[in-house]
């Protein structure tokens, strides 16, 4: 039993949330990129904002030999480079004292026993009170080993009055079978309410704002259904290529890397019914219903409604860039998709017959993630009798960069004739709210420390998402020879086949 957090009367009216309980955060994979670029800078920013518990210990767990002092220096360098706030020496000095390094192989049981002893010592020295947050920032193929060794060392169970939680970084498996296996492995040691599957898209301010936009504004919800919405587009475009992730990406591809998690999470937020309240499970119950309602493809339908692409040589921002197959670490005959577009149907009353088009790609001309809701056209009367047919109203929710919301509507062009043009009403977070939003990892780390799972994926969400993705992957695998892979030049908006996917329905992709 964890100590119950009683309401603090002094918190009433304050804009900050209660500080989480003291705890030790153990990061597996402490020498990796994620720890350097995101996790430790995020923890520093939480400390600088005064939201970190007064007693906290951050223990980096990794293979390379290193002293606490070396680890602190490395982390200081990384934080100075990647933190959203300038690092202040006096805050860093205090924060650095809470950083520790624990050297061990992931598979070395004795290393976990030593970790347990060290955490006990830290409880006494730093006052972390037996609360543990294990962050798996290591490669997913190490998860099973880490979980099993944590259990053997008794670290999965907190002592009375304390808690133990685990944060898993994506990917949560590579298909339904492996996801189930991973979930079983994790749950053999940590129960579902101890498990936090992180999807950093959900920590973004605009992603959280989707619920506010939909359910706090009376004007949208009555229109948010098949009667008024023609279709929805969800786009995640990036100019970057595979960078230094070829090893992982070759085995994953765009569908597994982005669609299974980030884009389906966004689809859930757009498609879900209003939850009964804002508790984590109330929201996640509604999200999982959406994933369950996504119509599964037959093998034939995959060929019709899913487009795979891979970038060939081209140019980004006026500079030539190599083809995917020429990238370092990529098989020259690689069949991995760097682009995928699909037409999804959600079989429920709200979304009956409303296609949802999802696309994600690397080496596209612009980086940006957004959701666009395309409303049905106004009836073909009055102004629409003119030669030009007015555009649809489009509500765009920009997730990144330049987070905000815009609404395209029709207006009369000044003059004696009734000429109609599209105009845009635009809301930019950066313009309206000068204060910078915390990074997604800051919010998510704080939530995990506080035991709030709202912005984390639940087991059934993950498994349902894989069940859908598997129908596509399996159809591709069933084909004789490699599945169709459409080329697109780097710097273009993807293969022509993706345009045809919409053209068949009389639609076009929204220009970002």
């Amino acid at each position, binding site marked *: 039993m964890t100590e119950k957090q009683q309401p*603090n009367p002094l918190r009433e009216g*304050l*804009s900050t949330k209660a500080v989480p309980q003291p705890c030790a955060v153990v990061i597996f994979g402490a020498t990796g990129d994620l720890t350097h670029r995101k996790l430790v800078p995020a923890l520093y920013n939480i400390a*600088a904002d005064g939201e970190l518990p007064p007693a906290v210990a951050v223990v980096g767990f990794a293979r390379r030999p290193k002293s606490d002092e070396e680890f602190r220096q490395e982390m200081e360098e990384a934080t100075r480079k990647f933190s959203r706030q300038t690092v202040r020496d*006096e805050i860093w000095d205090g924060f650095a004292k809470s950083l520790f390094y624990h050297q061990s192989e992931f598979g070395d049981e004795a290393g976990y026993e030593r970790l347990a002893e060290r955490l006990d010592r830290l409880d006494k020295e730093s006052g972390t009170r037996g609360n543990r947050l294990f962050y798996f920032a290591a490669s997913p193929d190490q998860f099973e080993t880490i979980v099993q060794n944590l259990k053997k060392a008794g670290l999965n169970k907190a002592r009375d009055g304390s808690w133990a939680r685990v944060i898993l970084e994506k990917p949560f498996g590579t298909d339904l079978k492996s996801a189930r296996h991973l979930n079983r492995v994790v749950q053999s040691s940590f129960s579902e309410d101890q498990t936090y599957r992180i999807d950093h898209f959900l920590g973004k301010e605009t992603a959280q704002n989707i619920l506010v936009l939909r359910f706090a504004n009376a004007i949208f919800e009555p229109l948010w259904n098949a009667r008024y919405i023609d279709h929805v587009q969800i786009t995640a475009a990036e100019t970057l290529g595979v960078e230094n992730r070829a090893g992982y990406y070759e085995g994953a591809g765009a569908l597994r890397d982005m669609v299974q998690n980030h884009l389906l999470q966004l689809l859930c937020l757009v498609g879900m019914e209003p939850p009964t309240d804002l508790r984590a499970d109330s929201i996640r119950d509604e999200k999982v219903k959406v994933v369950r309602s996504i119509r599964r493809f037959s093998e034939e339908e995959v060929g019709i409604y899913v487009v795979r692409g891979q970038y060939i040589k081209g140019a980004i921002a006026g500079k030539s860039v190599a083809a995917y197959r020429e990238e370092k670490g990529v098989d020259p005959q690689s069949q991995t998709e760097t682009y995928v577009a699909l037409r999804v149907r959600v079989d429920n009353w709200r979304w009956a017959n409303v296609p949802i088009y999802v696309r994600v790609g690397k080496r596209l001309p612009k980086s940006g993630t957004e959701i666009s809701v395309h409303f049905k056209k106004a009836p073909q009367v009055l102004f629409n009798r003119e030669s030009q047919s007015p555009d649809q109203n489009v509500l765009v929710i920009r997730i990144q960069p330049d987070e905000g919301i815009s609404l395209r509507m029709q207006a009369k062009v000044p003059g004696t004739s009734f000429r109609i043009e599209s105009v845009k009403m635009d809301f*930019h977070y950066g*313009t309206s709210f*000068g204060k*910078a939003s915390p990074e997604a990892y800051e919010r998510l780390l704080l939530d995990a420390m506080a035991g709030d799972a709202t912005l984390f994926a639940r087991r059934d969400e993950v498994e349902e998402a894989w069940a859908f993705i598997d129908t596509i992957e399996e159809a591709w695998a069933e084909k004789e020879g490699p599945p169709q892979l459409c080329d697109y030049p780097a710097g273009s908006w993807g293969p022509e086949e993706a345009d045809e996917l919409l053209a068949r329905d009389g639609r076009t992709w929204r220009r970002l």
Partner: protein
Amino acid sequence: MNCWLATGAPGGGYDAISSGNATGSRNDLITMPATEAFTAGLPVEVGQIDRELKKLWDASGGVMTRASLINLAVYSEAPDSLGRNTAIISQITENHACRAIVIAADPESKESGVEAWISAHCHVSQAGRKQVCSEQLSFLLKGKQCGLLPNIVFAQLDSDLPLYLWWQEEFRPPIDPQLWAWVDRVIYDSKIWRNFGEQMRLVEATQREARQRIVLCDLNWERLIHLRIAVAQFFDHPATHHHLAGIKALEIKHAPGFRSTALLFVGWLAGQLGWERSSAKAKSLGFRQKTDDGKQKIKVSLLRKEGEPISACRITTESAVFRIEHKPGADLLDVFFGRTEGRKMRQLLPAGKNDVVELVQEELMRGGAHQVYLRAVEQVRDLL
């Protein structure tokens, strides 16, 4: 940076105040002629303000984005207020896009007249690509024309946006119901009030007049925000939560002139923790708290000390001490917690600044009613 987008001689003749923004900073105006000092802007006829504003935006050639989340009306009778408030608005608009209506009034003037200026404050947005501009309309009212205040405010509001009225003077009866019925939030600083009780009665009467619609926003209360957060976080944890019921003494060190700030802090603790005044006598600082064994006395001491408005706060319980220090000029609070026999902990937490821009910015970041403030005032009303 303060600018106006049309050519013409700067109006005003008010004290020049430096912008404080270094050349090349993110708030530089890139494309528009700009002044080096804050003045009230381009002089305009009151009846032509809309037209002149339109011209001003047309002249920008669409390179700037006009943004506004609120109407922020600022009223002052201080002689140099137009220049000073323009400088303040310039900083506020970096984080809070608004239509600012800055009013300087001189009710004692024998002359009677109204002068008006328009200007815009432009900053590079967070995204770093757009110039985001907030409009400022400035008015100088003299003599009898000071009675035009409601009309001026009404005529210049950006429609549908809430009206925040920052009243930099003491309140004077009679309160004009016509004006106050339109106000969503009234911002004031009770620290400058000579008679808290009388002023508060006026504010509350105004609030009643507006059918409780107005939210009272006291900058003196806002001064306590970081201290309140720091104290609250002591008691978030179940292991320390029980100390709330065992507070024996509270000691606060405040700068001269900030006794009212310290009293509001005492009122906050008393209101939130259910303390009762131990004596009905006015000016007595004794409190009692109900405990399982009856009632426990709480000794409250206020000590004057040069430095930050609240430079130290010490809460003592049966078995622990919670201490916060704010060293002069520091923007971090030094926070200590120690059990009589046991662990001691130290933490640095944001302190904020006793700076009017920061206080107003903090206030603008908040929403909702200030019930906790009203509860705090109620506890110490007769001491203020």
